């Protein structure tokens, strides 16, 4: 018994020493290492959009930065959160508490991202959403240390929705993934459609990861809507498009509107199936020399061109590391302060800046999928129709009601 209590005391003493040293180095690099955690969907419906490719992107950013910052090593952890809130939250908790992770970047599931933001806010660590879409992350779910980097449902809806409605296609039918992300995307798009005098004739909701869209598609067909809006993503999206093709929806004159389309989805479908579809994106690999330079390097490591999530993950990690170098600390407050007060500009982010609510505002693009005749190579599949300036693409700051905006954090 006495030996046990001795062990206990020595552990307590060790813990106390550890705490003391941690507080001393508050303005340097905590724990003499910068740890980044990448939380991605490795094998589920969104694995191609973010997934392993997002981890590769973060790795590339660390390598390009030289593997260390201010003479301290940069470490990367990654985990598969299986699109489950509980796994994401438990892993993040362990990373923050046990592994002393300084920043977590995540790749897809909106519900998990909200949980991460909440935890980051509590633990005073930075969380970056590269792939999640819900606007709640800059609204009621915002965090003092949260950055919503790549895109959101509002930007998708304004970009794609406006473009389609302005061509006179005002009668819509929605096929929606039945959870936070789908609802948010459907709602934002519906607002656009209604605001421009359009009509929503009906909605069908499908569970995440459906394989059979027949009944939803037939209802959409029967509704007589001009536009069938697909408020889903990843495998759900590509399966729905494929089946819509088989049912002759597009051949029958209805327009398929993909509200969230990733490069990898188009690759999976093939341009012959997806041709003519318009969508909004935050990044396209073949946009200019800078994007091509990054994308070709990424292709060498990953075997596919980067999606906007993957490109965004690289860009976000790079800016995070630059902020540490510039401020001389990995302290979350200092890093956020730096990021908020400096422009964010690189191959990915054009005219970018970080807003008080955590929204990284940058230019978005309205794109159209090429026809097989126009497409010159496997990855040559999209034409950029229009650049959407950031302030037009994203929801105005005052509409989000993020609780930390007024307190001047």
């Amino acid at each position, binding site marked *: 018994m006495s030996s046990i209590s001795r062990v206990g005391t020595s552990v307590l003493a060790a813990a106390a020493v550890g705490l003391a040293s941690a507080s001393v180095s508050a303005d340097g690099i905590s724990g003499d290492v910068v740890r980044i955690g990448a939380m991605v969907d490795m*094998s589920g419906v969104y694995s191609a959009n973010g997934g392993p490719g997002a981890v590769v992107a973060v790795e590339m950013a660390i390598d390009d930065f030289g593997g260390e910052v201010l003479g301290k090593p940069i470490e990367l952890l990654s*985990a*598969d959160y299986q699109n489950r*809130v509980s796994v994401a939250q438990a892993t993040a908790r362990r990373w923050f508490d046990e592994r002393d992770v300084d920043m977590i970047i995540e790749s897809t599931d909106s519900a998990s991202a909200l949980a991460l933001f909440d935890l980051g806010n509590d633990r005073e660590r930075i969380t970056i959403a590269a792939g999640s879409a819900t606007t709640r992350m800059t609204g009621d779910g915002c965090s003092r240390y949260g950055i919503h980097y790549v895109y959101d449902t509002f930007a998708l809806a304004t970009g794609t929705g406006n473009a389609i409605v302005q061509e006179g296609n005002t009668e819509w039918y929605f096929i929606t993934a039945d959870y936070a992300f789908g609802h948010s995307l459907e709602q934002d798009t519906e607002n656009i459609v209604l605001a421009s005098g359009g009509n929503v004739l009906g909605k069908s909701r499908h569970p995440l990861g459906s394989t059979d869209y027949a009944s939803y598609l037939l209802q959409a067909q029967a509704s007589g809507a001009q536009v069938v809006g697909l408020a889903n993503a990843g495998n759900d999206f590509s399966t729905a498009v494929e089946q819509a093709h088989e049912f002759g929806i597009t051949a029958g004159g209805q327009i398929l509107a993909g509200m969230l389309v990733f490069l990898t989805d188009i690759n999976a479908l093939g341009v012959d199936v997806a041709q003519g579809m318009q969508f909004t994106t935050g990044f396209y690999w073949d946009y200019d020399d800078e994007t091509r330079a990054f994308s070709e390097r990424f292709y060498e490591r990953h075997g596919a061109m980067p999606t906007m999530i993957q490109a965004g993950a690289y860009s976000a990690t790079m800016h995070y590391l630059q902020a540490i170098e510039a401020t001389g600390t990995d302290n979350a407050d200092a890093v956020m302060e730096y990021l908020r007060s400096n422009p964010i500009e690189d191959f990915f982010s054009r005219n970018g800046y970080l807003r008080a609510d955590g929204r990284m505002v940058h230019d978005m693009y309205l794109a159209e999928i090429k026809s097989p005749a126009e497409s010159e190579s496997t990855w040559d599949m999209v034409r950029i129709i229009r650049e959407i300036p950031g302030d037009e693409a994203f929801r105005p700051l005052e509409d989000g009601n993020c609780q930390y905006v007024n307190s001047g954090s």
Partner: protein
Amino acid sequence: MMRIALFVALVILAIIAPFFVYPVFLMKVFVFALFASAFNLLLGYAGLLSFGHAAFFGTGSYITAHALKVWGFPFEMGLLAGVVASTALGVLFGLIAVRRLGIYFAMITLALAQMMYFVYLQAPFTGGEDGIQSVPRGTLLGLVDLRSDLNLYYVVLAISLAGIFCIYRIVKSPFGQVLRSIGQNPDRSVSLGYSISTYKLAVYIMSAAFSGLAGALLVVVFQLASLDEVNWHMSGEVVLMTLVGGVGTLLGPIVGAAVIVTLQNYLAEVGQWVLVIQGSIFVIIVLAFRKGIVGELSDPESWLRTTLRRVGMRSPGPGPSARPGEAVDLGQARQPVRSGD
């Protein structure tokens, strides 16, 4: 004597463990140990394989989360609300389910649990896929701040051990003896004058209540109630925990919970391989430990003990003996009636 020493050693280990191991992980192990023990009460003793225990676990967690977050209940009342709700659900489901046996019982419980899943998916208070997030942990009796992981650890340890101890007392009571006889030979129990459906209903409700308590504790630990807790995967996981550890043994569900939770926690960083590794480990356990880890270790006739003896090592501890040659598998997971200790 040996048993008491072992028990004391385990308790001391549990008390000093949070200084060495991450307390949140340990709390998760204890919560699932309680959940698996509650499940084992039903499968291991009454011989009822429920495939819908996630409904009670999830109800406990959702109601507790809602009570703590929206109604502003204190910690103890929040737990109580969760337990009351899951017990009530247990009464309702029990009345429907215990009329059937075997696979029909499993299917009915699964169907009822899936029904609850969709209720929680659609009900406005659960937040759908988002779940109920940032649930406050509160304080114990208004004195101990549970926001500290270490404080909460001891509270969770105490509550789950108390729960497991209650289950132990139930199993060792005359009521438990009747349960085992029902599990082994229901017809004979009827002929002896027992109203077996009343006994089954009672144990079903008890199991539901302890499952609800486990769900409620999980919410306090993670400050999150999500659909994972009501999904049928969760029902399957608790079956696995119990099978891996050893059906019908008291220690088995605890060991099984520890094994599965450890796998889930530490394999998350292996990436895509996580499912492959998990699958292989299950295959190995099913092939090598037919009666579960604890079941094999405590059976003197098992290949494990035989091999250990042959190699010349001392076999670990004198365990309870099972009838030689009796095959225990999913369908007939029953223990022979033993008289007390």
